[in-house]
């Protein structure tokens, strides 16, 4: 525990406290605006903080990271437009709550759970970094493949009513995710001879179109009145938090581990946690998808826990846990510091400074998250003639700023129109976004896993059974399949029949 005293540096230096506070505050708003992402904010800060000292630069970046991951839930709850991919799962129950007039409570709950989740993630970062990073190293392509297959099971959780419709949209999503340059050979796939499609379709563009623009169109069609919001009880009761504590901790653990895996981030963490909640919570406060508090608890604790997780491989191995830590590593390199095993040995104080920044950002997250909820709640009450144009402008702005590319705007509009018809005909849009998110992970890791066995499929199947992590994941998938589908009934019936005969 060398250098642990450096933990206090961010607390004792007033300028760092201010930088972190400013970072968290801006992060919440950047996160809340669809299309403005944490990744973008942190990369902008690289050139901004170029001439600064390293510590203030680090402080403001960690602050923005924390605030931004949380902020995405705001717009997901209020407008059904996730501000960031990590908030897709939050909107599933958050928006129905807003429609019931409980947006304030949903935001309050998302704040407390984010704070608990982040503390959990940071706790693991402090206590179990070497252990978790060993897991991250040994997580092979075949394991990522199985994990993403588990992710595909979410289609069931996210479907409303018709499973076939959910499967169709998920399939389209997976296909959209494959468009562009093949990551292995560099050849174009599904580009129809058009070189401009080589870059692929950015999944955030798909998300903004499907959730943002299509929601604006859909609001024009349905003539619902804005819901009057209850703003008396925004701080969730101790009872609500305590009764969900076990779920919060389980989802935080899922979030931390998925965040620590270099190939997956907060978006998948939140979705997996949501899936976990839906499978394990027998009596939710309301049915999932109709405003269950448990849905928010799961998603919000997991995505903020993933932050602590993402720092684990970054600090111990020098490998980024997600896209934001990848940029943070770049920022540190500019300042002459390269995270990794050597830094941990030679200057362990940097580890503790980052831990300190994370703890302090979390405290500010609670303060800023809880204040302003009443004003935010009013967003839902804004007349449609004002809010819809704002949503459209934000959707355009957001899709443009991802890559400063006008083509992305056209894609966003196309997906917005597609999403509008999907909503009219009752096809879920969230499964399509899920497909786009998972598609490259499934594709690359399956092919990588087969490459590792020299292209032999038999060897690949064998490798699924001969490695401990892989075998556990495989058994888990089999368990999920058997316990939650009709296979269970079939087996039980068979067993009963056998027993009767016997």
């Amino acid at each position, binding site marked *: 525990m060398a250098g642990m005293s450096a933990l206090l540096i961010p607390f004792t230096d007033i300028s760092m406290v201010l930088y972190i506070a400013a970072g968290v505050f801006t992060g919440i708003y950047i996160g809340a605006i669809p299309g403005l992402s944490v*990744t973008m904010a*942190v*990369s902008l800060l*690289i*050139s901004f903080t*170029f*001439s600064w000292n390293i510590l203030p630069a680090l402080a403001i970046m960690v602050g923005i990271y924390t605030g931004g991951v949380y902020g995405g839930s705001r717009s997901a709850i209020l407008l059904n437009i996730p501000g960031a991919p990590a908030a897709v799962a939050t909107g599933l129950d958050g928006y129905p709550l807003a429609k019931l007039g409980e947006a304030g409570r949903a935001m309050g709950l998302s704040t407390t759970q984010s704070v608990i989740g982040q503390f959990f993630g940071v706790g693991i970062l402090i206590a179990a970094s070497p252990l978790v990073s060993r897991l*991250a*190293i040994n997580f*092979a392509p075949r394991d990522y493949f199985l994990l993403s297959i588990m992710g595909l099971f979410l289609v069931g959780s996210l479907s409303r009513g018709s499973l076939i419709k959910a499967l169709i949209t998920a399939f389209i999503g997976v296909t959209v995710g494959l468009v*562009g*340059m093949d*990551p*292995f*050979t*560099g*050849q*174009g796939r599904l580009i129809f001879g058009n*070189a*401009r499609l*080589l*870059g*692929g379709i950015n999944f955030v563009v798909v998300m903004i179109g499907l959730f943002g623009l299509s929601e604006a169109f859909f609001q*024009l069609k349905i003539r619902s009145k804005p819901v009057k919001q209850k703003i008396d009880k925004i701080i969730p009761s101790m009872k609500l938090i305590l009764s969900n504590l076990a779920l919060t901790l389980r989802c935080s653990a899922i979030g931390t581990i998925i965040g620590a895996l*270099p*190939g997956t981030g907060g978006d998948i963490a939140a979705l997996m946690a949501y899936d976990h909640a839906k499978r394990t919570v027998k009596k939710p406060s309301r049915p999932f998808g109709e405003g269950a508090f448990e849905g928010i608890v799961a998603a919000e604790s997991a995505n903020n826990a993933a932050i602590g997780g993402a720092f684990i*491989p970054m600090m111990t*191995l*020098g*490998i*980024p846990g997600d896209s934001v830590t*990848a*940029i943070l*590593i*770049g*920022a540190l*390199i*500019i300042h*002459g510091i390269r995270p*990794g*095993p*050597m*830094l941990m040995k030679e200057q362990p104080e940097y580890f503790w400074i980052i831990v300190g920044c994370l703890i302090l950002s979390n405290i500010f997250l609670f303060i800023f998250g809880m204040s302003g909820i009443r004003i935010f709640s009013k967003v839902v009450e804004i007349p449609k003639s004002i809010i*819809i*144009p704002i949503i*459209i*402008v934000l959707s*355009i702005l957001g899709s443009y700023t991802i*890559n*400063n*590319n*006008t083509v992305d*705007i056209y894609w966003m*509009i196309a997906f917005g129109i597609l999403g509008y018809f999907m909503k009219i005909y009752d096809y879920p849009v969230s499964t399509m976004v899920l497909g786009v998110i998972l598609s490259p992970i499934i594709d*690359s890791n399956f092919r*990588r896993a087969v*490459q*590792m066995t*020299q*292209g032999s499929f038999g060897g690949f199947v064998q490798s699924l059974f001969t490695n401990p992590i892989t075998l556990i994941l495989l058994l888990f998938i089999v368990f999920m399949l058997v316990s939650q589908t009709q296979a269970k009934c079939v087996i039980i019936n068979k067993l009963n029949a056998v027993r009767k005969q016997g």
Partner: protein
Amino acid sequence: MTRKKLLVLVLLTALVIVSVTGCGRPAAKPPEEAYPSKYITGIIAWGAGGGTDTTSRLLVPAAEKVLGTSIVMSNRTGATGSIATQFVYDQRADGYTLLFNAENPQLYQVLGLSPLSYDDFEPIILTVNGVTVIVVHKDSPYQTLEDLINDAKANPGKINMGISGVGGQPYMTSLILRQGEGITFNPVTFDGDGPLITALMGKQIDVTGLAVAAAVQYVKNGDFRALAVVSNKRNDSLPDVPALGEIRPHLQSLLRASGFFYGVHVKKGTPEPIIAKLREAFLAGYNDPQFQEYARNNGMMLMGITGEEARQFMKDWQSAMAWLVYEAGDAKESPEKFGIPKP
């Protein structure tokens, strides 16, 4: 009610159209002597935090001082940098849009990614030349490059080599070994240095090539063993690791122009006085102590070449590497088609 709705719809449509079409560029064409009369846009072809990004951003502050205007940097990623390259090519040749890219455009044609190459651009400066180091896990049976080559000869196509995709540096390394030693590996593709490091740590691959900067700390820490630096000269960051050209002299001609390089380019046809001004500015950025220190700390070889010298280096690189890819059977088009001479 319906009229109101119609009005809203019309306004919304107008809004969408205006905000989409409003992104055009101003038409004013500034005279050469007044350059730069406004800010300059710098397009980085790779993502934030990566090697191209860091190197580019470090060049800019000193260059801005010389030019007396700001350079607004933005990352435009995707398709091995060809999206950014195309974007800069689509702008006016007026020196207001700069391309910050690595060696990749020199292979776009043979890989079928884009009809463009650095022939369509003017080099402002090539800053650094980076090299790859061949590494194995510390528990690996391969103590030297000799061991690896011998085992690869005994088991062709059986050793798993981590690469970062066709055209990437580890891939080029495997081709150099294939051409020079007649050995083949089983390629396993990962997303770049970070994932390759993870895979090697987890022993999911037997060997890989990493940028020296990325590999140094793991070699010093004892996690990885470095077998050879893919270059003719040893690298200052890893002075004990032999150079490939040193232990395998017959590879020297192939290694003459190899590795990766970073540079700044403008579209061909940009007026010479503007190019001269940009050169002066970026040479200042290159000579800035902060940049020099960064390059040294990250095991990169300083180049600082411009004009004809830079063009010649890129030509040599293209000739050697494009033919290497073509002869390995991974090219979509023959280099001959684009008039790339055989080395």
